[in-house]
């Protein structure tokens, strides 16, 4: 049997080549760049817009709450499901490799692509917001770096969760949309510590743990109890690990009934 890391590496390298030529990958890149586009439009049309204000508002609400989960859903669900839908999974499952190499290999390239796109999106958002005329303290590293960290961590965590979901559930896209925009939204509105059950809360805790006062202008920021940085990182890493292991366990046993 071919070692897991070798098989995953071969799959990842071929997948990266096909991924960058796929419409899905570029659609995701476009969605991640939307906040930057909005920032550029607002910066040019709204006199009171400030660089720091635009970055924090759009980074917090548009990038982290909408774009990151959405692109992660699109890419994560496809990690295994794309091979099933294209009926090419047969070739991979009938080679002397651990089946889980498919999940690991494709997940790594998907996350890599999204992380690069997210980094570029943050850079462009900052650049676009910098053109705003309103005066404030400017975009500091306390704004820029936490947003970058949260966006890149966000695509990794969400993509891993949705990749596992794609292995377990048939209509993973619908379930994922429901989770992201209904369940997380609902839980975040409940009183008490229910926000701990959402990925968003942990991602935003990354910002709260590393960001500066510029983030205080976000509604509810000051009133929320954020998690300390260490436990937040540990929680996010654990979520990734559990999701990947659950996905791998299921993939090892699952049968796919492909039609001709």
């Amino acid at each position, binding site marked *: 049997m071919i070692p897991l890391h070798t098989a995953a590496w*071969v799959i990842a390298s071929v997948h990266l080549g096909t991924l960058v030529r796929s419409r899905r990958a570029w659609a995701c890149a476009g969605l991640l760049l939307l906040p930057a586009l909005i920032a550029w439009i607002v910066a040019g049309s709204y006199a009171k817009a400030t660089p720091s204000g635009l970055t924090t508002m759009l980074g917090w609400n548009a990038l982290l709450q909408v774009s990151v989960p959405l692109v992660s859903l699109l890419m994560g669900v496809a990690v295994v499901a794309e091979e099933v839908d294209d009926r090419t999974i047969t070739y991979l*499952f009938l*080679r002397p490799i651990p089946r889980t190499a498919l999940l690991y290999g494709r997940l790594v390239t998907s996350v890599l692509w999204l992380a690069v796109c997210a980094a570029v999106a943050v850079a462009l958002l900052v650049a676009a917001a910098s053109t705003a005329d309103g005066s404030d303290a400017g975009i500091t590293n306390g704004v820029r770096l936490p947003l970058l960290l949260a966006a890149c961590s966000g695509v990794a965590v969400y993509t891993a969760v949705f990749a596992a979901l794609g292995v377990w559930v048939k209509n993973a896209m619908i379930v994922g949309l429901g989770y992201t925009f209904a369940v997380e939204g609902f839980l975040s509105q409940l009183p008490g510590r229910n926000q701990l059950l959402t990925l968003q809360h942990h991602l935003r805790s990354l910002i709260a743990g590393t960001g500066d006062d510029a983030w205080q202008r976000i509604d509810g920021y000051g009133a929320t109890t954020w998690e300390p940085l260490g436990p937040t990182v540990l929680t996010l890493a654990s979520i990734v690990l559990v999701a990947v292991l659950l996905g791998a366990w299921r993939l090892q046993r699952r049968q796919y009934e492909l039609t001709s």
Partner: protein
Amino acid sequence: MSEHLVRATDVARFYGDVVGVCDLSVTIPRGTVGLLGPNGAGKSTFLKLLVGELKPSRGQIEVLGETPFSNPRLHARLGFCPQQDALWEELTALEFVEFLLRLSGFEAATARSKGLQALERVQLADVAHRRLKGFSKGMRQRTRIAQAIAHQPELVVLDEPLTGLDPLARHATLDLFRNLGNEGTSVVFSTHVLHEVEALTKNVVLLHRGRLLAGGEIAGIRTLLDRHPRRYTIQARDPRLLARELVSLDGVETVKFSGSKDTSVLTVETRLPDVLLRELPGIAARTRAGIGSLESRDEGLEAVFDYLMGGAA
């Protein structure tokens, strides 16, 4: 080394309420074996069970002495050409075969040279660097065959491998399978086209409605036909005279006319072929019907298939 290629014991596979295969017990020897049956007979399901893409709902299946499902040890020893027309469209033919060779454990350089060799064997070497999305149906089929044979497996399993091939490619592909057999590779392939099986092997497994109809050598299967009438075609100058005598013979069930006036052909179905063959010379002499030829379709696979299908229907 396992004596048998495949040993299936009471294997059943269901898709919800739909039966894929049911109560299938068969032992397939090494060599080239044709899996035959009409559409919906369960051929593809059986092959998917055989290569380990699916698990039996009940029963046991062993291939080369191993349980196939999710078994990398077995997958190193077999190549599979699926029926579905699925490829990674953005890859070139060589990249496609090379990728799968690397997943079979070959180093990049070896995978490349073996990939080229495999594409040469299916006459695709000249388009090895073209993207698969531009390939015709026949070229795509040959690419799928190339990936199945590239790593020189002990067993090659092909699901409807000749579908979509033009006559020349079909001929070349049949030659390829023959050569694989000569090299010691076992080949199991499915088809619903009878003469494709006859062109390659005498070993067949016949499936119908998910059940085993017959298995073994065509000659062996022939003994199963004793309960079915055997069919003979007789070419005669005066078939009416001949027919009058033949219908009164013991065992003769039907006598049918076909052909033109001068060279008419009689088709006789009898349950007692020995009686027919013993009496025919005497009848021919007595009636002076002028028998030109006597042929039995019974040794042809088509006849076997027709008879068994009729019996199973």
